[in-house]
C-alpha cells in the first residue's frame, strides 16, 4: 500500500497510533508485577522488605544463591578457620557468616514441573488429536452426547473433586508420583483439548485425506502425512493452553505431592530464610519458573496468534 492510498478496511495511521498506545499501556500494567518479581529477585533480604519499597538498589544474586542452596550459620572462629572461598557464591554466603551445607530441593522440584508439565501436555495432545480426528471424521454413535459429556467434565472447578481423587490416588498408589500427576493433568486438560482440536480438524477438508487414500496411503498414513501437518497451528495453540494449566497448577500439586513428585508451585512459597520467608529467593524461584512457558510461548507465538483467531485467517 502506498503512503497516500486510503483503503476502507485498513485502519488509518491515527487509528493505528491510538491502538498502539492502548496496547503499550495495557502491556505496562500487566508487566509491572513481573518486573517487580524480577527486581525483588535481585535484592537483598533487607531491601526486599524495606518500606517505602526501594526502586533503586544495589543488585545482588543472593536470592538465586539462596534458592539453590541450603546454608548453616557458623561461629566467627569456625569461619576464620576456613580456607579462602573458591567461588563467588561461597564468598557471598560467607559474607553473611554462613557456609553452604548443600544444594536445595529447588532443582529437583523444577525438574518435576518440567517432567509433569510437558509429559501431560504431550499425552493430552497425543490422545486429544486422535480423539478429535475420530469425532471429526467418523460416524460415532451418540457423537453429540459424547462430546457434551466430555465438555461437562470441565464444568465444575477441578478442585471440587480433590477429596475423591486424593482417596483414590492413595488406594492406587499414585499419590506423589510423576505418573499420577501426569494422568491427573491430562484428565483435566483433555476435554478442552478435544474440543479445540476438533474445531481445527473440522476445518481441514476431508478431500485431502481422501486424495491421499486414493494415492495409495492407508487412513493412518494419510492422517500423518496430510492431516497432521495442516493441524500444527491448532495443535500448537492447544499445547500452550495445556502446558500453562499444568505448569501453574497449585491446588492438586499441594494436595497430592509432597516429596518425589512435588512440582515447583507448592515448593516455591515454602522457601524459608532466617526469620521468615526469604523473599528474594522466592522471587528468584518465580522468575526462573516463568522462563520455560515464556520461551515455549515465544517459539510458538505465530501458531498461537493464528490459533486463537480460530482459523479466521486460514484459507
Amino acid at each position, binding site marked *: 500500500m502506498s503512503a497516500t492510498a486510503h483503503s476502507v478496511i485498513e485502519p488509518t495511521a491515527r487509528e493505528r497510533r491510538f491502538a498502539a498506545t492502548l496496547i503499550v499501556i495495557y502491556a505496562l500494567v500487566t508487566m509491572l508485577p513481573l518486573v517487580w518479581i524480577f527486581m525483588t529477585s535481585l535484592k537483598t533480604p533487607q531491601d526486599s522488605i524495606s518500606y517505602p519499597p526501594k526502586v533503586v538498589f544495589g543488585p545482588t544474586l543472593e536470592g538465586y544463591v539462596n534458592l539453590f542452596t541450603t546454608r548453616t550459620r557458623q561461629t566467627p572462629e569456625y569461619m576464620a578457620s576456613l580456607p579462602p572461598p573458591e567461588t563467588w557464591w561461597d564468598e557471598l554466603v560467607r559474607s553473611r557468616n554462613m557456609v553452604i551445607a548443600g544444594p536445595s530441593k529447588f532443582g529437583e522440584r523444577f525438574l518435576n514441573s518440567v517432567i509433569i508439565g510437558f509429559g501431560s501436555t504431550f499425552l493430552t495432545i497425543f490422545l486429544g488429536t486422535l480423539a478429535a480426528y475420530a469425532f471429526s471424521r467418523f460416524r460415532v454413535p451418540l457423537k453429540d452426547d459424547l462430546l457434551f459429556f466430555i465438555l461437562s467434565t470441565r464444568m465444575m472447578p477441578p478442585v471440587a473433586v480433590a477429596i475423591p481423587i486424593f482417596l483414590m490416588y492413595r488406594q492406587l498408589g499414585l499419590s506423589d508420583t510423576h505418573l499420577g500427576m501426569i494422568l491427573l493433568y491430562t484428565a483435566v486438560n483433555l476435554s478442552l483439548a478435544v474440543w479445540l482440536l476438533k474445531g481445527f480438524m473440522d476445518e481441514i477438508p476431508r478431500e*485431502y485425506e*481422501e*486424495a*491421499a*487414500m*486414493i494415492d*495409495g496411503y*492407508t487412513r493412518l498414513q494419510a492422517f500423518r502425512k496430510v492431516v497432521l501437518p*495442516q493441524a500444527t497451528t491448532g495443535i500448537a495453540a492447544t499445547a500452550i493452553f495445556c502446558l500453562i494449566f499444568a505448569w501453574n497448577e497449585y491446588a492438586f500439586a499441594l494436595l497430592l505431592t509432597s516429596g518425589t513428585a512435588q512440582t515447583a508451585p507448592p515448593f516455591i512459597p515454602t522457601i524459608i530464610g532466617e526469620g521468615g520467608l526469604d523473599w528474594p529467593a522466592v522471587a528468584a524461584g518465580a522468575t526462573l519458573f516463568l522462563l520455560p512457558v515464556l520461551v515455549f510461548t515465544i517459539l510458538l507465538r505465530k501458531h498461537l496468534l493464528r490459533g486463537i483467531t480460530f482459523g479466521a485467517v486460514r484459507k
Partner: protein
Amino acid sequence: MAELALEGIEKAFGTTRALDRLDLDVADGELVVLLGPTGAGKTTTLRTVAGLDRPDAGRVLIGGVDVTSEPPAVRDVAFVFQQYSLYPHYTVFENLAFPLRSPLRRQSAAVIRERVETIARMLKIESKLQNRATRLSGGEMQRVALGRALVREPALFLMDEPLSSLDAKLRETLRVELKRIQQELGATILYVTHDQIEAMTLADRIGVLEQGRLLQIAPPREIYGRPANVDVARRLGSPPINLLPPQLLPDLEAPSATHVVGVRPEDLVLNGRGVASAITQVEHLGADTVVALEANEVRLHALVSGESRLETGTTIHFSVAPDAMLFFDADGRRLDGGGERA
C-alpha cells in the same frame, strides 16, 4: 488400464437417494463423460468407484475384479477432485511425487524425479515445481491436480470437472491435450463435466444422469440427435432445444401420441414461410446469431449463422424441416418417427 462396471449401485444419504440402481460400463480405453444437473449424483458415482463412498447395494468391478469392499488405496484409480485437490503444505513437486512415494509403490528417488519432470513439462508447470501448492493461480492448481493423477499409471482415471476453473483458452488447450494423452495411454476415464463442448469433444460415450438414474448412455452424436427423452434433449445444446406444442406447427405429420415437439435452435428455418412470430431479441455471438422469437405465446430460439440483419420488434415466419423434429409423448419419452438425420 482396465474396464469398469457398476452393477445396480444404490446410495442414499439420509433421505436423499443419490444413486438409484445405477448400471454403468466403461470399456478398456474408453472415455465416458457423465453429464447432469447439479445434485444428480455425478460426484457420488465417482466416489463410489474410488471407494470413498460405500454403496448401500450393488457391485463395483474394476478390471473384472469385484472391489466393492476394498479400500481406496488398492483399487489403483486416480481421482481429480472438483476442488481442494492439492496438499497445501507441500510444494508442487512434492504434490506430484506424493502418489509415487506411497508405501504401495516405493519408487526410487531418480524414477520419481524423472516421472514428475516429464509430467510437469507436459502440463507446462515445470517452472513452478518448487512453488508452494497454495502459491499458484487457479489454473495452475488444476493442472497440478491433473498431473498428480497422470504421474501414476492407474487402472482407471476419475475426473470431477477437472477443467472447470480454467479460462476458456486454457480449457481448450488442456482439453485437446487430455484427449491426446488419453489416446496415447489408452486410458480408461470416467469424466464429469457441465461443459457440453467438453462432453461432445472428449467423450466416446456420454451418460446423462438425473436424480441418481442413468437416463441414457450413447455416443455424443446420438445423445444430441436421438435423445431418449426430453430431459436428455434439454441437457445438451445451447441455446437449449425448443419444446413446442404440436398445435403450433401447421400440417404436422407426427405420431398420434405426440405431446411435445423438440426442435434444435439451428433447425429453425427463418425463410419467410410458415409460422408467424415476433422477434423479441437478437444476440450476435460472433460466428452465430441467436434470435429469440415469440409465436402464440410460445417463446423459442433460433440459431442462424453469420451476422443477421434481423431486427427486434419485427415479425418473421419460420418453419422446421420434418426430419429435424423430435417427438415426445406425455411422459417425455421420445417416439419413433423423428430425428432421422442423426
